[in-house]
């Protein structure tokens, strides 16, 4: 389904009916929103759009999949909601996610697991799984997510769609229930690179309510996609490929060869192994410390599900004990560990973050993009996702997308085909503010694969 396919309010209503029917199998929605005509014209006129449930919507329940916020109704719209509505978008629902964006499976929502449309026994990836599956199933052409450590790009890979995380600061996070403020990015899903490019143009821009947004005058976005990759220098992330199964590597190598045939300059590179091994713990220590700080206000005092106690302290403990799931609690504990003893570990992690970011910057300053398979293979089984973690060497292939968050680099996943009947994505990460190069390469990949607009059919 493409944005251009939506031409009338009847199309929107049909999308709502299809979404409702699909939801019975995918469990991807937390709150459906019956469609209302949007009087605004614009580039998204009559386009049905879904919002991850960490996006504040005035008068419409917003839970971040957290039981403590089960009945929370924001008194304001997020900036991106205002922008989408101004362009004519019609919102059809708030999608499921991992609780407070803490997770990579979409198994931790208080509404239950979300299922992958390609195989209901598998995860869609998270934390933006609900938005991903309904886009992949053809319910809507555009769905909003957020990406703190790959939470748009990994579900995009697992669900066979385009997932974009632009440069940090491109899109306002005002009104987005946070996970980790220095890592959070608003992202989105489409079935086509051109639609993703349009979405970026609509969503991006300076916002006085989010002090980390960048002025377009300082870092302008391109107004079209570069039709050529000739002369573009593309770095192949060998450390990831070393831990990628053969079938995925075959798909990936064919795409890289096609880019080379179009005139791109290909170079294989490796990064410092000792730094790569620290990507996940650095991410955890920083993200979870920031999350603990951000969510200190989830207390039941001003809003949220309150569980009473004999005094304030007991009320606080009762509310938070009942309100958070096990995964969220685990991450808060890691945050507390990180911030203990004056934040020694937090500072240490930030220093290693600096080294990691400098390592990437040193390579990208003379190149246009770093590419790798977004995930080593298709989506894991739900049972597998609940199992103990795999050894570190495999994790580099599973977790390299986090580098885009640690440094704020623009990064996207584009479908590259099926492995064992499951989608896998092609990841492109460019230098800061260089969405120009990123989208040019993404478009070339899409032209080679022929997967533009592809959705999973036959679910109903």
């Amino acid at each position, binding site marked *: 389904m493409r944005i251009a396919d939506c031409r009338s309010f009847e199309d929107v209503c049909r999308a709502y009916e299809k979404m409702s029917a699909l939801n019975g199998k995918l469990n991807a929605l937390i709150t459906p929103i019956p469609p209302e005509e949007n009087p605004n014209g614009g580039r998204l006129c009559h386009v049905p759009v879904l919002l991850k449930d960490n996006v504040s919507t005035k008068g419409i329940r917003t839970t971040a999949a957290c039981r403590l916020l089960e009945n929370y109704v924001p008194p304001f719209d997020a900036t991106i909601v205002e922008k989408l509505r101004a362009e004519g978008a019609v919102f059809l629902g708030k999608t499921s996610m991992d609780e407070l964006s803490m997770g990579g499976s979409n198994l931790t929502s208080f509404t239950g697991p979300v299922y992958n449309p390609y195989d209901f026994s598998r995860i869609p990836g998270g934390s933006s799984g609900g938005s991903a599956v309904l886009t992949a199933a053809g319910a809507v052409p555009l769905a909003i997510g957020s990406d703190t450590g790959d939470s748009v790009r990994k579900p995009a890979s697992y669900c066979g769609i385009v997932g974009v995380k632009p440069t940090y600061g491109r899109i306002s996070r005002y009104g987005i229930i946070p996970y980790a403020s220095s890592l959070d990015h608003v992202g989105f899903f489409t079935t086509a690179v051109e639609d993703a490019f349009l979405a970026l143009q609509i969503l991006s821009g300076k916002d*006085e309510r*989010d002090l980390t947004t960048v002025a377009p005058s300082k870092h302008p976005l391109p107004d079209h996609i570069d039709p050529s990759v000739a002369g573009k220098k593309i770095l192949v992330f060998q450390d990831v490929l070393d831990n990628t199964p053969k079938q995925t590597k075959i798909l990936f190598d064919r795409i890289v060869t096609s880019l080379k045939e179009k005139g791109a300059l290909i170079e294989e590179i490796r990064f410092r192994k000792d730094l790569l091994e*620290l990507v996940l713990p650095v991410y955890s220590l920083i993200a979870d410390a*920031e999350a603990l700080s951000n969510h200190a206000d989830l207390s039941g005092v001003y809003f949220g599900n309150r569980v009473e106690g004999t005094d304030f302290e007991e009320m606080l403990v009762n509310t938070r004990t009942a309100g958070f799931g096990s995964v969220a609690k685990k991450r808060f504990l890691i945050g507390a560990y990180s911030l203990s003893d004056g934040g020694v*570990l937090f500072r*240490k992690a930030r*220093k*290693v973050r600096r080294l990691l970011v400098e390592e990437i910057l040193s390579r990208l300053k003379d190149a246009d993009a770093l590419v790798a398979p977004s995930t080593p293979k298709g989506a894991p089984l739900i049972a597998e996702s609940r199992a103990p973690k795999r050894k570190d060497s495999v994790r580099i292939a599973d977790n390299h997308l986090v580098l885009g968050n640690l*440094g704020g680099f623009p990064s996207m996943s584009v479908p590259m085909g099926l492995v064992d009947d499951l989608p896998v994505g092609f990841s492109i990460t460019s230098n800061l503010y260089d969405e120009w190069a990123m989208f040019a390469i993404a478009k070339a990949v899409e032209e080679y694969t022929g997967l533009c607009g592809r959705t999973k059919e036959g679910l109903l």
Partner: protein
Amino acid sequence: MNDRDIEKLAKDCRFELRKEEIGDLHETFRLLETMVRRMDDVLVNDTEEMVSPIEGEIPLPERMIRKSIDPEDVSELSVNASGGFFRVPGRKP
């Protein structure tokens, strides 16, 4: 890290854990402690400046730069579910 240490962290977080939740956490913290020791190996010549983002990489709020406000003073702004300001990790401990 033993059960008591984990319970203390939970107290800092203002929630309680079930016995089975505590049991699941030992391996997590054991791995984390191992990785923290590896961080020391790579931080051979670290400096305090490394803690801060470099302007241009992760953008410092433009308003602060325009008004020449020292970013080190910005430590208490926060964004939360009901809207508000934005919290950046403080540059000082």
